[in-house]
């Protein structure tokens, strides 16, 4: 397989090798008030392509985006289906607000599939133009089922109303090349390139369970494809297992009104207000337009929230090297960096002429998207690596090889801790010297993953399976690995230290898909501002925020313009953490697009339906009970003597004031045990309160009353729940 850079590639020759397996036309369809009311179904086993109508019932109940994804997947799979079963689907859906150009952050797609890491439905949000463009072709969702025999491209041609499935044997699968090659191949001209978007994976996605999907969009000024990632849960591994090389969409003539909304005037006015807020306030608030999410390194470190050396510590003297000042110098700034038209929060910064030092692209200068906070913390500080230039390369390879920087980083950190503690050695790692701080070893691990070789393939199975291997094959202490292996339900933790925030521990712990922060980020409210002193307060937040945040995923919006920019007087409102004015904007926006009456209450109800369906789905797939919400102790408190000692004063004080134990004269081990007993009890008490607030049993099962209240008590849903009640 040719894996050279695009300017060395003969696109015509590659295209000549394509074999058309299916070609069909579809009726054009205009969007009405945010909806096409159709989905495109593709089966790669049979090469069947169908245009499916979307019923009013589906639309009213599940709204779009993740809602559609969950419902389609629910209908497609049975409890025995696994990620690599042919009936597993990858669904990419947009949501009614998705595709408007006037309100920042309206270009997101939501991807749903059964995860190879968790065996549960996973959902991941992603920018880039694929979602909006495929909606403008007349589809609210794309469902791909079945498995191809050989590598294929699915091409949705919205200009000629045609879908093809093409065998594509020769293109390199690595995304930074493939996106460029296919954009060139399917666009008619340089100007036309912005009308093409490519979804692709990469070599490491094929050999691991942590593969991601890249969604491209063409940057007119830099004349390069930029990539945004549907990162979590191994979706890219499913994609490559189905032998999908790429999805390509083409649609020319994007304008601001293609959603055919009910009330354009309101949409523009809301958008203008937010653009101005960003113009005026970004540099007093988050500096997203300059630093992107790298500023979070600077924000987390002073509060002991940045994971260092596998979540043992919350800060490091070198941490700020990975922060905003380093990247402000490296980023190619001053150009529109939104991942869809009209996003002036523009967090998606890139670097040009970046020289690669390792692997197959060694010595080449590449244009590359810059690392996000999660990548810097996961592959950087959490692995003891503090060189920002090195991290750009780590991020480049994770993207082009298509693996999730969070799962890769957290897994690597776990391996490094085992290695440093001497409980695994080079015999296990195949000779890799995986100490904290060793970037070279980290990169070699990743290159092995891409080549399908050695310990890289083993590591690519994720922490859950590594723990089992280390216990069963090498006889390691299971209890210790359970304490320090930062995964739940099979998914690796994203990159925040939660030891001092009980609410966030449960935020991670109760998240349907596994420990990812998109459902909850409560640390500042809980730990720093102490705004939720009681269990009930925390439970209320753990009810409200997951539902509120789920709503972005069903309507097609990005979460960042909700609270990474705020009105200047937000702190004077009753509930600043909710950003009330922006919530009002969203309520108005929904009506302005769909023409439907809407309210804050209705917003939560829409989410709650999808959220509960996803919960029942977890039960259907064999996880989802309370016991799956128990976290590794490392996320709750100090596991080791070193961790305890690193914040001894804090912990000793807590023993006296909260636990009622005098630390004087106790060994550190005894103190750890006393603190652990207390914290684990607190966690269980909070779980009780959360489940109660959500209308679930104490075993985390949605009650029949709850399902009826939400109007989703379908026979097959009730059947699953009844088994456990």
């Amino acid at each position, binding site marked *: 397989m040719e894996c050279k850079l695009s300017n060395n590639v003969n696109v015509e020759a590659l295209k000549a090798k394509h074999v058309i397996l299916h070609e069909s036309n579809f009726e054009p369809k205009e969007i009405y008030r945010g909806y096409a009311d159709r989905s495109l179904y593709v089966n790669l086993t049979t090469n069947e392509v169908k245009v499916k109508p979307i019923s009013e019932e589906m639309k009213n109940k599940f709204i779009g985006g993740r809602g559609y994804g969950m419902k389609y997947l629910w209908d497609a799979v049975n409890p025995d289906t696994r990620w690599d079963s042919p009936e597993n689907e990858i669904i990419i859906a947009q949501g009614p607000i998705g595709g408007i*150009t*006037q309100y920042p952050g309206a270009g997101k797609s939501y991807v749903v599939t059964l995860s190879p890491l968790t065996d549960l439905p996973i959902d991941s949000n992603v920018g880039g133009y694929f979602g909006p463009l495929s909606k403008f072709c007349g589809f609210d969702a794309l469902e791909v089922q079945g498995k191809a025999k050989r590598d294929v491209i699915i091409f949705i041609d919205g200009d000629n109303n045609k879908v093809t499935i093409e065998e594509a044997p020769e293109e390199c699968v690595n995304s930074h090349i493939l996106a460029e090659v296919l954009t060139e191949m399917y666009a008619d001209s340089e100007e036309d390139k*912005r009308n093409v978007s490519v979804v692709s994976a990469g070599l490491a996605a094929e050999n691991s369970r942590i593969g991601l999907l890249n969604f491209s969009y063409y940057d*007119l*000024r830099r004349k390069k494809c930029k990539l945004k990632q549907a990162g979590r849960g191994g979706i890219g591994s499913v994609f490559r297992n189905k032998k999908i090389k790429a999805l390509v969409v083409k649609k020319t003539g*994007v*304008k*601001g*009104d293609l959603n055919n909304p009910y009330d*354009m*005037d309101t949409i*523009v*006015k809301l*958008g*203008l207000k*937010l*653009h*101005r807020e*960003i*113009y005026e306030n970004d540099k007093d608030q988050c500096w997203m337009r300059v630093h992107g999410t790298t500023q979070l390194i600077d924000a987390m470190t002073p509060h002991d929230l940045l994971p260092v050396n596998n979540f043992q510590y919350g800060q490091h003297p070198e941490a700020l090297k990975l922060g905003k000042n380093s990247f402000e110098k490296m980023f190619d700034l*001053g*150009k*529109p960096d*939104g991942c869809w*038209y*009209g996003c*002036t929060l523009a967090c998606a910064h890139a670097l040009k002429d970046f020289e690669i030092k390792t692997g197959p692209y060694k010595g080449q200068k590449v244009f590359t998207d810059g690392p996000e906070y999660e990548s810097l913390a996961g592959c950087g500080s959490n692995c003891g690596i503090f060189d920002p230039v090195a991290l750009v390369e780590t991020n480049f390879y994770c993207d082009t090889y298509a693996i999730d920087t969070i799962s890769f980083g957290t897994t690597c950190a776990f391996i490094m801790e085992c290695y440093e503690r001497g409980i695994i050695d080079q015999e296990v790692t195949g000779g890799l010297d995986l100490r904290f701080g060793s970037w070279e070893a980290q990169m070699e691990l990743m290159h092995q993953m891409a080549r399908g070789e050695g310990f890289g393939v083993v590591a690519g199975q994720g922490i859950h399976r590594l723990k089992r291997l280390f216990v069963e094959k090498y006889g390691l202490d299971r209890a210790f690995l359970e304490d320090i292996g930062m995964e739940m339900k099979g998914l690796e933790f994203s990159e925040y230290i939660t030891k001092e925030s009980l609410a966030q521990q449960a935020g991670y712990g109760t998240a349907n898909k596994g420990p990812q922060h998109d459902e909850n980020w409560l640390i500042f409210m809980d730990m720093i501002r102490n705004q939720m002193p009681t269990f009930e307060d925390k439970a209320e937040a753990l009810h409200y925020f997951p539902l509120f945040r789920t709503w972005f995923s069903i309507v097609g919006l990005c979460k960042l313009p909700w609270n990474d920019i705020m009105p200047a007087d937000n702190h004077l409102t009753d509930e600043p953490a909710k950003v009330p004015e922006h919530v009002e904007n969203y309520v108005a926006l929904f009506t302005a697009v769909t023409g439907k009456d809407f309210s804050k209450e209705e917003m939560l109800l829409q989410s709650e339906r999808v959220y509960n369906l996803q919960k029942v789905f977890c039960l259907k797939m064999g996880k989802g009970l309370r016991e799956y919400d128990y976290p590794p102790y490392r996320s709750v408190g100090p596991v080791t003597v070193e961790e305890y000692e690193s914040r001894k004063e804090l912990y000793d004080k807590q023993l006296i004031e909260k636990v009622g134990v005098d630390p004087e004269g106790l060994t550190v081990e005894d103190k750890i045990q006393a603190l652990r007993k207390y914290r684990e009890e607190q966690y269980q008490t909070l779980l009780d309160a959360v489940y109660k607030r959500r209308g679930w049993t104490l075993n985390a099962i949605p009650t029949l009353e709850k399902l009826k209240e939400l109007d989703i008590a379908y026979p097959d849903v009730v059947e699953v729940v009844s088994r456990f009640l």
Partner: protein
Amino acid sequence: MKIVASKPELCIGCKACEEACSKVLFKDTDAEKSAIRITPINGEGYDINVCNQCGECIDICPVQAIYRNKNDIVMIDKDKCVHCYACAGFCPLLAMRYHKDVVGPFKCISCGACTRACGTGAIFLEDIIY
């Protein structure tokens, strides 16, 4: 380049400029469709708001729809524009306009019609170099 410059102290608020502009841009007399805007300041004189052709909006546009024409005037290519209004939100002077009956943003094209309609010399074309 020629920009519309002003001496607000000479403005009497007759709004003849707004009407002239609206006519040139949209063959209409709706003052809301004018690129130049006259606003009374608390009963004490008038604020005159119009684009100074600074060009900041050029770099904001995601589709390169905004450009300088051969006279260096900042123009919008309607065919390319995707109506995101980023340019309007990010104009330092708030001189990029929106009107609900007009598709896409609009702005001063420095034609001088308003200056010719002004009877007091409060607005005039001025040659400047950026």
